[in-house]
């Protein structure tokens, strides 16, 4: 499902090109949640920020962080991918995600549609091998655990564990591959 943020903001009569403050974030979240009521399990939700220049930390907290949490725990679970984010959106999300991690045991990350400032396709903090898996999947789209293990130089159980962490963070997908599983990019 593709969610056009600009269109929703216009419908809600929110002044553009900036999405700022908590009340605006809450309004947008409620509207997007309604749209998501029809998605099916493991669907990729493309949040398209075309035409949006700035989202501030209050908006990110009320809108994006809540959607990311929902993507992990809601029924159905889904995946989020950000499209057309500006440099300011990128730096603001990075800052909020990093602060979130400093204050909680948990961490958040989200996939982007293009290579961004960290030279990869995600926002958030990942370990080196986790990042390698994301990059490997970006190129190869679908891979099995032995291939991951070979690429990142870890054992197969370790590699599978890392891939499962990325799956739990909703950054990669797992799909059936004959009698086994393989992992796929969003």
């Amino acid at each position: 499902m593709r969610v056009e943020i600009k269109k929703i903001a216009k419908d809600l009569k929110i002044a553009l090109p900036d999405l700022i403050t908590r009340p605006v974030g809450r309004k947008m979240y409620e509207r997007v949640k309604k749209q998501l009521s029809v998605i099916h399990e493991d669907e990729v939700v493309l949040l398209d920020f075309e035409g949006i220049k700035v989202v501030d930390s209050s908006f990110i907290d009320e809108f994006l962080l809540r959607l990311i949490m929902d993507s992990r725990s809601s029924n159905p679970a889904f995946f989020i991918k950000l499209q057309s984010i500006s440099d300011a959106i990128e730096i603001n999300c990075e800052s909020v995600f990093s602060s979130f991690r400093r204050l909680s045991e948990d961490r958040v990350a989200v996939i982007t549609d293009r290579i961004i400032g960290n030279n990869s396709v995600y926002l958030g903090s990942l370990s080196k091998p986790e990042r390698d898996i994301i990059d490997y999947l970006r190129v190869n789209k679908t891979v099995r655990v032995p291939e991951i293990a070979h690429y990142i130089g870890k054992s197969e159980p370790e590699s599978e564990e890392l891939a499962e962490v990325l799956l739990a963070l909703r950054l990669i997908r797992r799909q059936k591959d004959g009698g086994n599983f393989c992992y796929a990019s969003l």
Partner: protein
Amino acid sequence: MQRARDAALVLPNKCRDAYSFEDVLGHQNSLYGNEVSVVDLSRIDFIEPYSMIGLLLLGRTYLRNTGQKLTLAGMQQPIHQYLSRMDFFKWGCFAEAVELDKSKQLKRSSFSNRVVEITEIPNRERESIAAITGIIAVFRKRAEHILKYWMADSTVDYFVTVISEVCQNIFEHSMDSGYCAVQTYSLAGEHVLRLVIADSGIGIPRSFSAKPEIVAESNARLVEMALTTPISSKRKAGYGLCQVNAIVEKLRGSIFLRSADSSVAVLYNRKRVGPGQVFLKNGLTGFPGTQISISLFG
């Protein structure tokens, strides 16, 4: 007339930046109890946005405490013109001993491009959001001129973030209204952009007093924590000021944050890369609320 002159407080010529303005704040106690009703600005030959808003808050606090407006007297014409142009008198906190002749007022069209006039940020959510949206709209419209020496599309967006984050803190935390102003000016061959957002509310130390788990060895250290750590007096986490700090670091500018009787200054402009120089001060003259001045130099 003589009596009024006797009861005037003559302010020192210390309105060039946040640091020198401390001398002005040091005089505020002499306003009370001495029947002072006139503030003499005759010695002031330059006033930048932080000092201007500081003076405005000083007058507003006096008005609230005494029910009387202070009268500004002896203003040199350029100072009077500037204050008038920046809408300083619009907020009704001061009287003018002599009103500026209409023919002397600065034309808005010729001076509009490099400023955002003093705008009130109310302490009610809905009105505040409207005010912040308005400030950002004016800023975007004039950004090409305000950010002439630092121009990049991303710089405009970074500043929009900064305005949004700091202004929201007023209605979220201060329990009072505040003011915002922006100006780019040149001084001693240096271009300076100054964004000032200030209130006279409860201040950072008091807003954290209900959170005993947040402990700092001094008020200045607490103010620094508010800037560098994602703590919040209302929520599990507060991202706003950390975000502002990260952006100012990226732009290699500087931040001066003052609250109650303490301040922190972080200077990223002194070095091309790496962490900024940090200066903490405790035991400053008590001044209610929180005031922040963000500067870029070029």
